[in-house]
């Protein structure tokens, strides 16, 4: 059990890293892009870059304040 937990912790740290909020923003932005493209017919190519830049700034600000 302990080994499984440490393997899980390793992969979490490897992929997600120090700030899980960044991962949440990226996944949510991709989901919203897919909805806009397929359900609303909007070619929302701009949405992911905007969300990624905002997530980076937010994460940096949080890191510096902590």
């Amino acid at each position, binding site marked *: 059990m302990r080994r499984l937990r440490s393997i899980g912790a390793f992969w979490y740290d*490897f*992929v*997600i*890293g*120090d*700030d899980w909020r*960044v*991962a949440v923003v*990226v*996944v949510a932005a*991709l*989901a919203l*892009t*897919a909805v806009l*493209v*397929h359900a609303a017919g909007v*070619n*929302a*190519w701009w*949405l*992911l*870059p905007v969300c*990624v*830049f905002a*997530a*980076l*700034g937010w*994460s*940096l600000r949080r*890191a*510096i304040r902590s």
Partner: protein
Amino acid sequence: MTALPLILTVFVACAVEAVEALTIVLAAGLTREWRSTFQGMAVALVVLAAIVAVLGPTITLLPLTALRLVVGALLAIFGLQWLRKAILRATGHKSLHDEASAYQREVEAARTAGLSSRGGVHDWYAFTLSFKGVLLEGLEVVFIVITFGASQHNVGAAAIGAAAAVLAVAATGIAVRAPLARVPENAMKFAVGIMLTSFGIFWGAEGAGVSWPGQDAALLVLVPVVALVAFGYTVLLRPRRGRSPVAPASGKVVSS
């Protein structure tokens, strides 16, 4: 897209990780013994090559749209991790990775460890130190090789970039027999973070169904825009005169 940007991106990313692995291998080899160190390194390289050989062809069987969505999301998250760390280090809010200090720490630990033999390995400590160092640093390279290679349906070109970087760093390490402390690791991580994030955005959005204006040529705009934003944050977050950063570079060793 041609194979050259793919090979170059993988080369730089791999070189950064290879420099960190080299520090551990040198500490094990020079302090303990070379034979067990090389055994550990060889076993780790075989494991890494096996992961690429198994996962590379398997992942390319996935439909391209689904593959780009998953790979894009992973690359964007991964790239943002690298960029975040590089910006925090460039602005003095996180200690710089110091290969010389990392080497000293590994050497001191290696000197105090006892000697034990297992199987065909004479020095188990040197073997495991070298094996873990190469495997853990190499996993990041494998991740980049597989994601970039699979998205371009060219795992071979990505593997060539990775192998070239390992050979270049290994040859330099053998020549100088010291950790490569002068390699501008943070600048390289910054550049790789920009590339990973840009490709992650591009492929992720494509996987979500977007048509980029200008198709593949959009990358020629996206990469400089990501770089500009990253440099902009670096300038904004630099401590102003008279205000010291939270954690100045102090020689304290931090993880990659």
